């Protein structure tokens, strides 16, 4: 079959691209291929589904008519097996052939599976946690077998959200994290400890500086988990959540350039003209470092997909680059971190902090040469976007930096010209 646009992958980058293409080109056929047999569900919502906080009907972030309305041919449950970059052809697992003019690869990430002795013998009881089907099969496994406890390997975002979902289902949960604290990549020690205390308050055990080296089974069902420290945890449910890596299956063996992810330019195009990449599979410009990096984050994937879509449809659009940013609520405590929230070479940065461990409340802003380069807001997160905006604007905040962590911080303390530009803009009295 012929399709002007082919999109491999059906998550948020794909939706961003479809919406962008249709702003420019109302006609050209778009074909979306996904190996998952499910509509455009939101991956971050799977932990809410696991915890019983979101029903299946609310898992979808676009309505049922989305594909039809946008004239998209949707091919679900089929894997894109092979790509011929010279002929501009994608071959699906069932030998379907799609000839395209423009291709977007947004195949996302694959969960990393560590070397654990005995893991290959487990038939039931070990799950990764990145897909809707992971959440569904985990839930039915829990119900069918009356599972009462679980071990989660990895104290990053995915691990913590999985743990929270399991706690909400009444399971006893043990988190095992190799680093000396949870969320080591996004938070600093203070913020990590506040969230850890809250998780422990929910009855969760958190084991740090430890990892899983082996598992045992009975008739193929997980029975015990062995830790490096020598500890043995009897459990029939293990969630492996130590991270994802870009899913490069489709481009291996082609001439598309990749490093950690598929390398793209500032139009989200790969080294092959007409072939683009976006989302967790792409390695694109990082706003803070001006280097290329893989940022497996929802808003980044949407923006990259949108930029790719515009360029595919012929509207030249530049990707300005984004930076790490995440908002997550763990154990009822909202936490937002962005940019360089925990710089290692401390002497080059100025750090402003306000905290109250009892509430808990933690606010931190990292400055470099008078400009905001990162921050952490925990407990009270309203208006955090103003700081993210100041980072993007590259504004020198040194003249009002002692105001930044005041409770009433807002546009009122910003220089009048910036404030008026932001909140009023141009007004024409006619």
């Amino acid at each position, binding site marked *: 079959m012929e399709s002007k646009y082919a999109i491999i992958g059906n998550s948020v980058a794909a939706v961003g691209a479809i919406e962008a293409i249709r702003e420019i080109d109302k006609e050209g056929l778009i074909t979306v291929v996904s190996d998952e047999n499910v509509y455009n569900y939101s991956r971050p919502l799977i932990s809410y589904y696991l915890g019983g906080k979101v029903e299946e009907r*609310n898992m979808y972030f676009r309505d049922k008519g989305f594909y039809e309305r946008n004239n998209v041919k949707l091919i679900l449950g089929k894997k894109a097996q092979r790509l011929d970059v010279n002929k501009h052809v994608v071959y699906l697992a069932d030998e379907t052939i799609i000839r395209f003019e423009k291709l977007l690869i947004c195949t996302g990430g694959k969960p990393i599976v560590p070397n654990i002795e005995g893991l290959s013998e487990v038939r039931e009881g070990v799950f990764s946690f990145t897909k809707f089907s992971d959440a569904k099969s985990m839930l039915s496994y829990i119900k069918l077998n009356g599972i009462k406890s679980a071990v989660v390997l990895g104290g990053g975002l995915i691990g913590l959200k999985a743990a929270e979902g399991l706690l909400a289902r009444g399971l006893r949960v043990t988190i095992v994290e190799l680093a000396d604290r949870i969320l080591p990549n996004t938070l600093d020690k203070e913020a990590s400890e506040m969230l850890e205390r809250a998780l422990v308050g929910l009855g969760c055990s958190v084991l740090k500086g430890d990892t899983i080296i082996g598992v045992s089974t009975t008739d193929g069902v997980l029975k015990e988990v062995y830790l490096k420290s020598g500890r043995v945890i009897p459990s029939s449910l293990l969630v492996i959540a130590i991270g994802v890596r870009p899913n490069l299956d489709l481009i291996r063996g082609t001439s598309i350039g990749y490093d950690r992810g598929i390398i793209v330019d500032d139009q989200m195009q790969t080294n092959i003209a007409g072939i683009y990449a976006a989302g967790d599979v792409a390695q694109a410009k990082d706003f803070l470092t001006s280097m290329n990096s893989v940022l497996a984050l929802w808003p980044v994937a949407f923006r990259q997909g949108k930029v790719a879509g515009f360029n595919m449809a012929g509207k030249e659009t530049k990707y300005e680059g984004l930076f790490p940013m995440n908002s997550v*609520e763990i154990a009822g405590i909202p936490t*937002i971190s962005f940019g360089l929230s925990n710089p290692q070479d401390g002497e080059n940065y100025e750090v402003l902090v306000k905290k109250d461990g009892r509430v808990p409340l933690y606010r931190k802003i990292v400055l470099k040469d008078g400009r905001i380069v990162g921050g952490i807001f925990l407990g009270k997160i309203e208006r955090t976007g103003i700081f993210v905006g100041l980072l993007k604007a590259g504004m020198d905040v040194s003249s009002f930096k002692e105001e930044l962590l005041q409770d009433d911080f807002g546009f009122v303390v910003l220089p009048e010209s910036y404030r008026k530009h932001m*909140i009023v803009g141009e007004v*024409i009295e006619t």
Partner: protein
Amino acid sequence: MRRGSLVEGIKRVIVREEYCMGCRLCEIHCITQHSKSKNILKLFKGEEPKPLSGIYFEERGPTSFALQCRHCDDAPCLEACIGGAMYRDPITKRVLHNREKCVGCWMCIMVCPYGVIKADHSEKKVASKCDLCIEAGFPACVENCPNEAVILIDQYGRRVLKEG
């Protein structure tokens, strides 16, 4: 000046801080407009839960102003929303928010450069923001500002007055 329906094109409420007297009537009328009774006396005599106002009121010394959703052309909250709760109304082009779909992840709060989305903890945790009062016909904050500091403008920056 234009008189017209709210329906065509993106509109936004802005405040001219030099006219703002800091009376905060905009907030009171916003809360009233979004309450169940829509009656200022019933509301303040005990209607619960009271809605949050869609306004951030800022004040420092002689300077004060109200700030609410800009209904941006290129709205970052639409891209950041993991639940598809934040959406653009196809007819009025407002950025609206579906409370039922919202899971309270606060991604919108993280990316809004105006800081005008609130976390509403009254029932289920959801985001809360200005909806331009379209269902009522005209923004309550604009209609009730005694000094015309809060005004409505269209996408070209032209002032829009209430019809009639």
